[in-house]
């Protein structure tokens, strides 16, 4: 019964809250919110609130990729968002989101994993990317991917040196200077654009009500150059192939704009330097 008013306005490129079909809600991004981490970011997209913390720890490389470090994703759907997530209630959604994150990063170019290697086959950096879902206002995947990109941009990994003594045993030395660290290049980190099919049109950045009306959605993971790294259809309804191609084109277009705005915001925030006033949840 809710779908009727939303659908009729879709034909004029006007949604319930006044946005066009390809407009995002106001996004707030802030990095370096939590200090116990190597990098962190908070993203607020309408009523969706995500906090991501990245912790860099030393580990052993995987057997099939001895010259690379790796990323581990964990998503915690906190009971803050809705009481249904209490206890193990949020585990299903958390696993689904984590698996999607693994898939979008599962290619050679998203993150330079070779830079995370310390000594081949023995030591490497493992980046634990922990996503905390605090409030759910629709369009989770997009917000989470933006937060992950911002947190990886903010990540500072301490520089280490491998010292080898006469007997051949290796020792790892951490640099004394706490500001001596390596940064990750997030040029090719993809962002997810979710397109929901409502009636005959598709919309970007759906609110909870719009998601409830939509038959099916397409998740497209796009890099800043417009390269698609992963695509997935979700939802109970079905889509015809023509819609899928249309939605993919929209996703690429919207994704490129999203990346440009995100990059400029992140660089602007960084240019404010260490004296920048941190707002966090107090603002």
């Amino acid at each position: 019964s809710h779908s009727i008013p939303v659908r009729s306005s879709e034909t004029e490129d006007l949604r319930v809250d006044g946005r066009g079909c390809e407009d995002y809600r106001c996004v707030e991004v802030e990095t370096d919110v939590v200090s116990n981490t190597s990098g962190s970011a908070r993203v607020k997209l309408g009523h969706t609130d995500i906090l991501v913390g990245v912790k860099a720890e030393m580990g052993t490389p995987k057997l099939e990729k001895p010259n690379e470090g790796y990323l581990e994703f964990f998503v915690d759907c906190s009971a803050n968002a809705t009481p249904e997530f209490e206890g193990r209630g949020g585990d299903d959604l958390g696993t689904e989101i984590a698996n999607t994150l693994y898939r979008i990063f599962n290619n050679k170019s998203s993150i330079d994993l070779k830079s995370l290697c310390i000594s081949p086959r023995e030591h490497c950096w493992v980046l634990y990317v922990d996503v905390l879902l605090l409030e759910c206002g629709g369009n989770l995947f997009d917000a989470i991917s933006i937060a992950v990109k911002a947190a990886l941009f903010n990540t500072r990994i301490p520089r280490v040196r491998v010292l080898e003594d006469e007997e051949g045993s290796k020792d790892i030395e951490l640099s004394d200077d706490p500001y001596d660290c390596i940064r990750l290049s997030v040029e090719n980190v993809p962002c997810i654009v979710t397109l929901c099919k409502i009636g005959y049109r598709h919309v970007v950045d759906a609110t909870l009500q719009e998601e409830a009306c939509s038959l099916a959605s397409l998740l497209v993971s796009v890099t800043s150059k417009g390269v698609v790294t992963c695509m997935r259809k979700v939802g109970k309804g079905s889509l015809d192939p023509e819609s899928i191609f249309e939605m993919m084109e929209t996703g690429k277009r919207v994704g490129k704009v999203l990346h440009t705005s995100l990059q400029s915001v992140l660089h602007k925030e960084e240019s404010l330097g260490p004296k920048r006033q941190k707002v966090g949840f107090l603002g």
Partner: protein
Amino acid sequence: MAGLELLSDQGYRVDGRRAAELRKIQARMGVFAQADGSAYIEQGNTKALAVVYGPHEIRGSRARALPDRALVNCQYSSATFSTGERKRRPHGDRKSCEMGLQLRQTFEAAILTQLHPRSQIDIYVQVLQADGGTYAACVNAATLAVLDAGIPMKDFVCACSAGFVDGTALADLSHVEEAAGGPQLALALLPAAGQIALLEMDARLHEDHLERVLEAAAQAARDVHTLLDHVVRQHVREASILLGD
């Protein structure tokens, strides 16, 4: 206490505070729009979020409903990146369950549950950064969240931790001071009546010193009360300005 001096000869602690000095507290109510009540608190480097849903109908089995009062349900969760060393699971382990039960006991003493029979009040606390005094931060945040939700309480619940080093009682312990292994006391107080909602003590403490440590914690809790009272009044003032009163 391997070489770390918790209290210097001049009376300064590791982070430069005096023995009875609290860390800087900043708090905000109404952080999330979709929850019934929410609040955020920063006590030094410890950051905690509390969200309240309720009073609403009992979820799950109706058999748990109490005929004369509301059921208070608490969950304590600390983010995997909150501690120095990464935590594997945010909640579900023994410590989180115990904290949840302690929070429940604390708030059952303060919330006027008789006003909402056969219903449930959910209090979810999330620790974002843990630097000592997590229980106290959680209780303080939860008090503000319950007030933000408009659920009637007998009084504020204010909590603080205290320790004992070199014959002096220390108020509001940081992680370094907690990890040093001395006696720790956690106290939740209802300030107006001076009633204690929860008292917990770890490690050995001679009973002659107990009164001093208890008094230090109670005084710190009363100081926290002044601050929380100010935060609530500020929030109500802002809300009434927006409503145009």
